[in-house]
């Protein structure tokens, strides 16, 4: 056991026979929220299962907070995993389900009851806690799995599509819970196909395609590395037509599109810094009333599509 406080993967590969799961993955994941993004079959769940010890790597090494998956007794005190699988013991209420697994951790009755109550409160399921899990809605099942994953107060949370089945309200609340856990210094590793929310939430993203990590880091940093791809910028202003003709005559803008409502435009440029300087100049010179300016493709979806091409469109 080392002193590392991160999740560290070194040259990790996983093959299912001759089928590639993930290949030569090197990651060093710090505390905070990390999102794993990729289309179905890209290797997200394989990577999640490797980190949580459900799978063993074909080659390479993993360390989670300095522990290896070969020592479940130590590791799973610090790891909570919310799987995609909706499977619960028959006849159990939500409360009994959480409590039974806390007792397997070794917690005596009173402590297990208290931790169960805290977990249920955190996921907002106290009122339904004494109902049978079999009668829960999809969203409630998702929350009870989350409660089970956080009940023993782990340092690492692995959440495989945790937003699936949640209505917008519950989704916002659960995202708030993730932020709270991250603020507490936990590692929160999330895979999700709801890229917009993940993008807003994440401290960093890992983009995976066909079993390979194609990019990782803060999303803005990843975006800036995609140098060959022109940056998309939107401008909301009162006279987009005049602005379009002005910038076309002076800058390396490659494409301009006026918004349908006529209240702004979308443009592509390979020189973002130059464009922003030009905008300041134009506002003064042309007397434009600019409401907002910002990058339009500085999100996971856009970056993913740039990196992996058409495949990214299905994410």
């Amino acid at each position: 056991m080392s002193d590392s406080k991160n999740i560290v993967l070194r040259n990790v590969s996983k093959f299912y026979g001759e089928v590639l799961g993930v290949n030569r993955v090197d990651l060093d994941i710090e505390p905070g929220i990390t999102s794993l993004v990729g289309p179905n079959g890209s290797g997200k769940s394989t990577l999640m299962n490797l980190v949580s010890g459900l799978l063993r790597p074909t080659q390479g090494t993993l360390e989670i907070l300095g522990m290896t998956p070969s020592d479940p007794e130590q590791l799973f005190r610090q790891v909570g995993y919310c799987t995609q699988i909706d499977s619960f013991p028959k006849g159990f209420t939500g409360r009994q389900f959480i409590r039974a697994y806390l007792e397997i951790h070794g917690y005596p009755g009173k402590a297990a009851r208290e931790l169960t109550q805290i977990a249920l409160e955190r996921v907002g399921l106290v009122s339904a806690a004494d109902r049978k899990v079999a009668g829960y809605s999809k969203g409630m099942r998702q929350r009870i799995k989350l409660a089970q994953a956080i009940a023993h107060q782990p340092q690492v949370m692995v959440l495989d599509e945790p937003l699936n089945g949640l209505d917008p309200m519950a989704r916002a609340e659960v995202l708030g819970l993730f932020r709270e856990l991250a603020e507490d210094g936990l590692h929160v590793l999330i895979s999700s196909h709801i890229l917009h929310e993940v993008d807003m939430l994440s401290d960093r993203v890992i983009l995976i395609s066909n079993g390979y990590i194609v990019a990782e880091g803060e999303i803005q940093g990843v975006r800036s590395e995609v140098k060959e791809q022109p940056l998309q910028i939107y401008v909301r202003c009162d006279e987009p037509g005049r602005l379009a003709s002005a910038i076309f005559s002076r800058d390396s803008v490659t494409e301009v599109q006026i918004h349908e409502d006529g209240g702004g435009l979308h443009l592509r440029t390979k020189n973002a810094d130059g464009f922003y300087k030009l905008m300041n100049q134009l506002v003064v010179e042309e007397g434009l009333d600019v409401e907002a300016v910002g990058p339009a493709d500085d999100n996971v979806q856009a970056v993913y599509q740039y990196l992996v091409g058409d495949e990214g469109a299905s994410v």
Partner: protein
Amino acid sequence: MNVAEVPSSRQVDRPQLPGGRALWIRQVLALIRLELRKNLFGRYSLAVYFLALLPVGVLTFMLMIASMFEEDALFESVTQGRMAFAMFFQTFVLRAVIFFGCIGIFTNLFRGEVLDRSLHFYMLSPVRRQVLTTGKFLAGLLLVSGLFATSVGVSYLLVHVPFGTTMAIEHLFSTTGISQLTSYLLVTVLACLGYGSVFLIVGILFRNPIVPAAVVLGWEIINFLLPPMLKKLSVIHYLKGLFPVTISEGPFAVVADPPPMIVSIFGLMLFSAFALVIANLVVRRMEIRYSDD
């Protein structure tokens, strides 16, 4: 839910847990409780309940038929009744009821969880794999032993019913009656232990346990024909020395002395320990992969 109003779990001290053996015992007990509860309501248990009721049902049916024709009493004497029960126990209860009951429970201890996609709950718990294997095995053993011992006990009582309440009580509480009942219960528990161990391994090693279970059944059935050396490789051989009543195995049987009681008991316990070691080795290498991703 309003997350902001909820107290952060970080503010609550996580209770300290004991280490080493004390923790393992606590975990095994928790596993047994959870497994018993799951098994009591599990789909695999329905067949076991049916099997446990079968001896009682068969004997009750025979008694009812006999009572309808009073001149043809089911048994002429208590001794004859006990002999008939010995035959019934050794051929039907042991080789069919307990055998198939153990298949139902023990082959599904891990395989059933994989099919139900629920094994990850255990695999993600901070539990040593040997603790997990032991807890699940003990829960299965408690369940089948409890069910089948009750079934055997009630069946043995039923054999005495035709002789009237007073006679039945007198015979049951005689030295022979209590000794025989104790022996049958001991054999039942040891049979569950032996067959349970066999099918724990079968359930872990084979994706489809039907073929290996059929091979084991065949081996146990032809045990009386096997040479003495091979007889030792069967569960039934170690139970024979504990039967309170010996019945003939027919003219073709290869006669061999059953092992002494102490060898039978410790032999089966040792075999169970060996089965748990094997199961643990496999479970430690087990991977969980439900999704196609």
